């Protein structure tokens, strides 16, 4: 029983890490439908930026979040403006290959600049174990859970209640109709991509203290992030959140009760089953909206 509860806590914490990384992808992939394979590399850039700010300027990782969010917003804007936008009318596959190419280029750039070694932010106050009865959880993980909930609630409200949010949703639903209604579609794309990347900026500041930065760190998370977004029904922030929680819990429980090397098999099996019985994801808007 003790172990089970510890595993559940661990799963929720893992889920909140997946959630915070996937929220940005929900905007980029779920809402504006750009299949961004370089999403993981945005996380990698963010983690190196946090590392540099912490070690060179002595900032606390959570303080470093602010400049990194701005930096990643700008990176996102540049990627959308100069790589995706020229390809917006091209075949979808071309966009996919452009982002795969970008991903490979960024990984190798990081290898050139930082080498293959891992870099770790030293943050003793974040890696402190909090005892909940006999169960262990890290301060950093609790912060991540709080931040994930706040981000999801905040983004949901933003998408529903602001003019910009409505414009983003309108663009997502029908680009041409939105254009006819006077929405500046290209700008909306740029802003949405920038916001998605900025969310990754926040994620990288929260993940850095728990996980060391390497050039390939993005590949550890990107596949899971895609699964989470699809599971959540593509465009729902709450969907992504619950999708991440399911993956986190399945990951944690199956690694213990089945085998650590089979956990991916288990959660992909569940993923496939859900897609068979509910093709639009757990929180999808029904058939035909995809």
């Amino acid at each position, binding site marked *: 029983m003790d172990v089970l509860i510890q*595993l559940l806590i661990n799963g929720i914490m*893992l889920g909140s890490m997946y959630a915070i990384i996937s929220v940005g992808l929900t905007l980029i992939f779920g809402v504006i439908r750009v299949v961004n394979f370089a999403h993981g590399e945005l996380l990698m850039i963010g983690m190196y930026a946090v590392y540099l700010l912490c070690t060179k300027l002595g900032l606390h990782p959570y303080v470093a979040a602010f400049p990194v969010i701005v930096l990643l917003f700008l990176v996102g804007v540049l990627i959308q403006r100069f790589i995706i936008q020229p390809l917006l009318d091209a075949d979808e596959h071309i966009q996919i290959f452009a982002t795969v190419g970008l991903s490979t280029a960024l990984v190798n750039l990081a290898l050139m600049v930082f080498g*293959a*070694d*891992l870099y770790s932010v030293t943050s003793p106050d974040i890696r402190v174990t909090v005892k909940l009865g006999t169960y262990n959880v890290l301060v950093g993980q609790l912060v991540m859970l709080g931040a994930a909930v706040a981000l999801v609630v905040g983004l949901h409200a933003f998408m529903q209640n602001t003019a910009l949010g409505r414009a983003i949703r309108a663009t997502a639903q029908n680009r041409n109709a939105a254009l006819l209604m006077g929405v500046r579609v290209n700008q909306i794309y740029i802003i949405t991509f920038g916001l998605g990347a900025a969310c990754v900026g926040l994620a990288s500041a929260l993940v850095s203290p728990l*996980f060391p930065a390497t050039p390939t760190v993005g590949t550890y998370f990107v596949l899971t992030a895609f699964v989470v977004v699809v599971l959540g029904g593509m465009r729902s922030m709450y969907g992504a959140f619950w999708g991440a929680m399911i993956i986190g819990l399945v*990951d*944690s429980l199956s*690694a213990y009760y089945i085998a650590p090397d089979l956990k991916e098999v288990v959660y992909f099996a569940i993923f496939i089953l859900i897609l068979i019985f509910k093709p639009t994801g757990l929180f999808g808007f029904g058939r035909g909206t995809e």
Partner: protein
Amino acid sequence: MKLVMRAAYAAGILATGLALSTGAVNAQTKIGALYPFSGGLALLGDESFRGLELATEERNAAGGVKGQPLQIVKGDAVDPNQAVGEARRLTSVDKVTVVFGTYSSSLSLAATQVTELAGVPYFELGAISDPITERGFKNLFRSNPTARDFAASMVDSIGEAIAPALGVDAKSLKVAIIHEDSLYGQTVAGYQTKRAQEKGVNVVETLPYSAKSVDLTPVILRLKSANVDVVLQTSYQNDTVLFFRQAKEQGFKPKAVMGAGGGYSLRETMEAVGAANMEGALNVDFTQYKTNVAAAPGITEFVAKYKAKYGIEPRSGHSLANYVGAKIFFDAMASAKDFSAPSIRESVLKVDLPVGATASGWGAKFNEAGQNTRVSPFVMQWQGGELVTVFPAKAAVTKMKTGLGSN
């Protein structure tokens, strides 16, 4: 015009003649050096090459081999394809007498196919995959220990080092084998399991996991529930860091943790984990520099030579392993009748150095397959942020500690 042509001919003939005559005076023996000099493996590939370079310079200063100075011809093997291409170039265009290499096992497996067919002896100084010398090749020799030696060393040290240090019976220790699930981890863990059965070691858990895991907490909870005393881990860098951090966070305190080189040997791993948390972690690997001179005569001189040439401390034990291997094979070449492949094989099989005769503490005696049988990796331990040799007793610079973490 005619005059110009004639002058050119004359110059050409003269030049050829000069070249021939200098060739006759300074007959050089060309040796191939096949390592990854660029790409992702370049750092340790270059570190390995430095060992060969130092051994070659030392040899040349002492008059070369059979009175001929050695000339290194480099081949850059970034991946198995290029390893094959460069091995072809070295053997057919540059016509090297022998080839040294390779650091990485996949590169060695590919390149040795070429040299074996070409009938050129290949001296492997650093790749640890066992199948390299299990293919019945006649012109392939390896000076370094293999994955099986690593696994045996780890399992044996439970009974020979860890149990005595804890003052308990080895049979009472519950052992877990955990490993990343790519070829490296699978291979070493496979040999460990076999060795553990032979030695009657009580293995209670064998847990493979992906090196790309972002969470090893479930693995640690399994070890904790099984009350594991000794953990044998075969891992890369990321998963090593994750294991140590999460073990501490979950309050998992085994009596001993031992790695199979890989992530355990790297200073960056210790820095990411923190010296205090890595304190007491054991590791099996090629000989490192904090080793007792009594067991590794010449290790201090090697470090001095290295620093004089490159201006820094050696970056890993790879240079030492390559240096020692190269010296063994240079001696074998020197005592061979001639540089033909059969003569070199005959001479290599006659090499007979007792354990503890070289700067890495290894001996040399080659079996029919070309594998050095007098090598075994030492057991090291992270103490105060340094990786120091603790076992066997003769090679140890300090006493082995028990437990994990200094707090």
